[in-house]
């Protein structure tokens, strides 16, 4: 009984502690101004291969944008296009950028200098999917204060490596055969002993 009471007390304490979840400074995509113009080198619908092909991303400040004194850094990311987000909660778009899972792959994060470009080789761990490019302007604390992205209907495809190597295939075959052979061997011995 005493033990049960202790367990309940512990539960209450933990729940209470959990209630006071810390709230952090949050940036919301819908509230950010679109002040950057972003273009990427692949043509719309082009297929790029992981580990081999390169893309060049160019960004610049929109002519009609206000001042950019706040922009200290620019962060360029690959973002999943809606077709690759369908039925995949782990790639879902959230307005709260702390929870947002759309743009998971960083192309570059560098000091802001008005306009710039970067050439990026598609990494080997970028999954096979459809992407577009987005650039965030970050302030000194690293919070997003503005952004820009490629045109609305623009996207390109990445085809990744499968990860299967010849040695893996061979190993799988050898180990499987060994397992079956061991079983057959022991059954054979059983039969021999039975007949003796």
């Amino acid at each position, binding site marked *: 009984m005493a033990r049960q009471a202790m367990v309940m007390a512990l*539960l209450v304490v933990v729940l209470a*502690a959990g209630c006071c*979840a810390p709230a952090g400074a949050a940036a919301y995509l819908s509230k950010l101004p679109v002040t950057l113009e972003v273009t990427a080198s692949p043509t719309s619908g082009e297929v790029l291969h992981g580990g081999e092909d390169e893309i060049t991303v160019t960004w610049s400040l929109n002519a009609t944008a206000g001042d950019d004194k706040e922009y200290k850094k620019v962060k360029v990311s690959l973002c999943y296009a809606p077709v690759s987000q369908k039925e995949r909660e782990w790639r879902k778009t959230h307005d709260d950028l702390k929870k947002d899972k759309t743009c998971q792959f960083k192309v570059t994060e560098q000091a802001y200098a008005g306009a710039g470009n970067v050439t990026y080789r598609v990494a080997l761990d970028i999954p096979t999917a459809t992407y577009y490019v987005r650039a965030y302007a970050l302030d000194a604390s690293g919070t997003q204060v503005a952004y820009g992205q490629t045109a609305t209907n623009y996207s390109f495809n990445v085809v990744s490596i499968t990860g299967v190597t010849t040695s893996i295939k061979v190993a799988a075959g050898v180990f499987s055969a060994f397992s079956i052979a*061991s079983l057959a061997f022991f059954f054979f011995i059983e039969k021999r002993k039975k007949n003796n």
Partner: protein
Amino acid sequence: MERQSKPAAMEVEPASKPKFRIPVDSDNQATEFWLFSFARPHMSAFHLSWFSFFCCFVSTFAAPPLLPLIRDTLGLTAKDIGNAGIASVSGAVFARLAMGTACDLAGPRLASAAIILLTTPAVYCSAIINTPTSFLLVRFFTGFSLASFVSTQFWMSSMFSPPKVGLANGVAGGWGNLGGGAVQLLMPVVFSAVKKMGSTPFTAWRIAFFIPGVMQTFSAIAVLAFGQDMPDGNYRKLHKTGDMHKDSFANVLRHAVTNYRAWILALTYGYCFGVELAVDNIVAQYFYDRFDVNLHTAGLIAASFGMANIISRPGGGLMSDWLSSRFGMRGRLWGLWTVQTIGGVLCVVLGVVDYSFAASVAVMVLFSFFVQAACGLTFGIVPFVSRRSLGLISGMTGGGGNVGAVLTQVIFFRGSKYKTETGILYMGIMIIACTLPLTLIYFPQWGGMFTGPRPGATAEEYYSLEWTEQEREKGYNVSAARFAENSVREGGPKSASGSRSRHTVPVDGSPADV
């Protein structure tokens, strides 16, 4: 297993040197359980069986902790993942039923090693898959290996005397289930190590699958090389000498399916063990996605769920035995209902506290203890439901566990219909509802949850009804009759006769052969 009755009381067996280091009863079943010993054949059988079953759990649940990588490599959708999770536990539904029969015919050593070795190719081929369909297929075939649960329980019941069989079964089952927890830690660690050695992520997870595969292969080979079915030898020898009578499958089947208690326990086991399997499949991904922890942390949390099995399931078995010593079978039934219902309540709470990471972890740990203890408590009751069809009823209960896992995942964790935390909440409600049928279980000689025993009903009568007149005359039910004598304690404190202790061996009989 049934034996022909031993020669009458006063015949003294020729003095023979003690064959076993561990003390045994007159059926050569161990009367003690030495956890840290490998004494042959009893304790070595225990270690071989729990470890090989552990390896099967490791292989079956090797994919979930790596899902964040596998889903990107293969382009899986939420539905693909859900379907594969269902497939991983559905194969064993029928495999467990078949395993009960296979143990009867060929012995637990050959039956378990066969299914374990035959499923290893599925584990190795997990390294070379490339489509959602192939992912589903490898998980389906790997899951067949979970049928080895039935062989561990059967093997322990052959090796250990009734006073210790509950503990042996509970530890073997619990330490095997541990694999489902340990693997959630193991796979991320192996993955990191392989990545550090230079592999890309999409190759590293594939290489990681060889660890469970190799563990499974060598544990099964050890079972074949060092294991022994019964204390006196392997099946082929016992069948040859006529020490074992072979029952017919048709009779065993009939007495299993016509016993309503077997169906109720199969249903309720689906809501403790089945829930455990479902959670093994979803918990790492849930913590990774909901709370943004990294793969290692998600694996650690998921592991702690399964690792509770070290003590929770054996604890459930011990609790069942203790309740029986105070209140008989009615105590066992009440214990199971209470513990499993509390598990359901905690599951509801887990679905509700998703706003807090710390609370979710704490509730999940508590939930794991109760749900797994309920599994141990279930198998404190199963051995008493039937003697003739013990193997098949164990298989039905075990299979029912897997059906529960399938149903739970189909209804709540497939596709994007429910958010995971909502699914967990509804799963808790379903646990509470599906545990209620326990109130309907009634043993005429011992009572049920709400009613006492029928006056004059005896255990002998209950068990002997499983045989016909002619069969009883031939003595097929002798071991069941012995079991009935030894289960007199299940009637509660008033019915246990003071003079007969379960630990002494009466001169003309021996503790039942289970």
